[in-house]
């Protein structure tokens, strides 16, 4: 469904991604793990076309994403839930969610989608009129995920949804992510909670200094010596 082929990318003169290739198949739940600064968020931005690769190709179904402007990506069916939420702080929860369904197709179903999303996130339902900037960290993350769902995406990409959350809330977010996967949405997720995410995902890629160094089934990687040493502190 999603394919990166030999992608090199960076910011200005600084190259961050080196010959990155990977793929996510339809209905899969794939995780990217890597240390701080490995380039995980950069990969997400390349997929969303916020950054253009200097070479290589990004494909989604039969579309080349790297030649599409960033604001057209969501229409193709990819919802990006960015690192650190990136809500519109001075707008209400409801307005934030509405902005998730701007395309004519999503707008036509806005009411039903809103109802469905509010059932998934009862906490947001109670806070529809509250300014997003005044939500707690966990609520903000839920709002960011809910906003992504409002476009009825085929695929969602999550950038560290557990960032800054307590272990308990992290559990809750992961349960929601699995539930979304259960609804047939293909997932690509970046996470620091390596142990938990490897346990729930289908496949994972390990990124080191902007290069893909390992790939495998989640449970297999959990047993991998290299992964154990680098991420699990064993």
């Amino acid at each position, binding site marked *: 469904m999603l394919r990166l082929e030999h992608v090199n990318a960076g910011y200005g003169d600084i190259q961050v991604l080196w010959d990155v290739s990977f793929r996510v198949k339809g209905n899969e739940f794939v995780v990217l793990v890597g240390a701080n600064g490995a380039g995980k968020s950069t990969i997400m931005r390349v997929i*969303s076309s916020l950054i253009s690769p200097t070479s290589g190709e990004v494909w989604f179904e039969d579309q080349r994403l790297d030649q599409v402007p960033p*604001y057209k990506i969501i229409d193709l069916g990819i919802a990006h839930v*960015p690192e650190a939420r*990136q809500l519109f*702080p*001075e*707008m209400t929860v409801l307005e934030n969610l509405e*902005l998730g369904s*701007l395309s004519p197709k999503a707008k036509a179903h806005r009411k039903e989608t809103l109802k469905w999303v509010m059932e998934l996130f009862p906490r947001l339902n109670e806070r529809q009129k509250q300014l997003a900037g005044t939500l707690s960290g966990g609520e903000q993350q839920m709002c960011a995920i809910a906003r992504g769902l409002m476009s009825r995406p085929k695929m969602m990409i999550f950038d560290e949804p557990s960032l800054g959350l307590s272990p308990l809330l992290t559990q809750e977010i992961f349960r929601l992510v699995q539930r979304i996967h259960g609804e047939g949405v293909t997932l690509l997720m970046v996470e620091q909670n390596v142990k938990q995410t490897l346990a729930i995902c289908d496949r994972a890629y390990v990124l080191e200094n902007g290069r893909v160094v390992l790939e495998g089934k989640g449970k297999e990687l959990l047993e991998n010596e290299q992964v154990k040493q680098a991420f699990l502190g064993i």
Partner: protein
Amino acid sequence: MDVFIQTMVSGILIGGIYALVGLGMTLIMGVMRIINLAHGQLMMVAMYITFVLYEYFNIDPYFSLLVSMPALFLLGVLIQKYLLNPLLRIESIIPQNQILMTVGVAMVLTEVMRFIFQSDYKSVKTPYSSAVLYISSIAFNFPMLIAFGIAMLLTAGLFFFLLKTDTGKSVRATAQNKDAALLLGVNAEWITQLTYGLGAALAAAAGTLLLPIYYLYPDVGGPFTLKAFIITVLGGLGSTVGAIMGGLVLGVAESLGATYISMALKDAVGMVIFVLVLVFMPGGLKTLTKV
């Protein structure tokens, strides 16, 4: 006492028009994070359009809003698209250079108008230019009253647009977090053009509404750019509600200054208020509404 009430009334009426000027600049400030130093000059162009329509085609200034606003909207979109946005594509150019570009735009607009119309003072004298409405002993200058009414309608329209429509919400979203807006499918570049166009159209409305009670010459833009800047800072840089309050405060301050100090010093009073607000309320008037 009557003099005081009269002064306040005149101040509030002119303040309504100032609010339009300030709102336009504030919108541009909020979305593009630049001070539009061509704002008063855009207003001046709209005043000349209104003048020409009245002088040569006998069109009432209030009807020419229907021409001056769309014309300036278009001019604003073109300025943003072809002069301001290209500057952003070159990484070594700092955003402040967009501000320098607006200074250039201001100069070109002024000189083009001077070339066409020379430096003479012009004015539009409608039959109702000096009509006055009395409520007990307070005089309401008729064109000012109409101008205030239209300014309020336009302001209400702008708020409806920003608060209730998807495009308006996209404008606010782009101002608050451009990358997030892009991810949600907002064409941020088009939003910048739309915003500059709207700002220019609001300036146009203010210019057209002011013409029957004001006079016109190519350099009239400069003082209004300064006023718009004061209002925007008074309002708290980027706050629309603040801009309305800033406009009213400036109008009343100038009016009080003209009555109680001296006509010649009325602009100085505006500057003094400006400095006082900066010193005592650095966040601008919007801090008053944040309960």
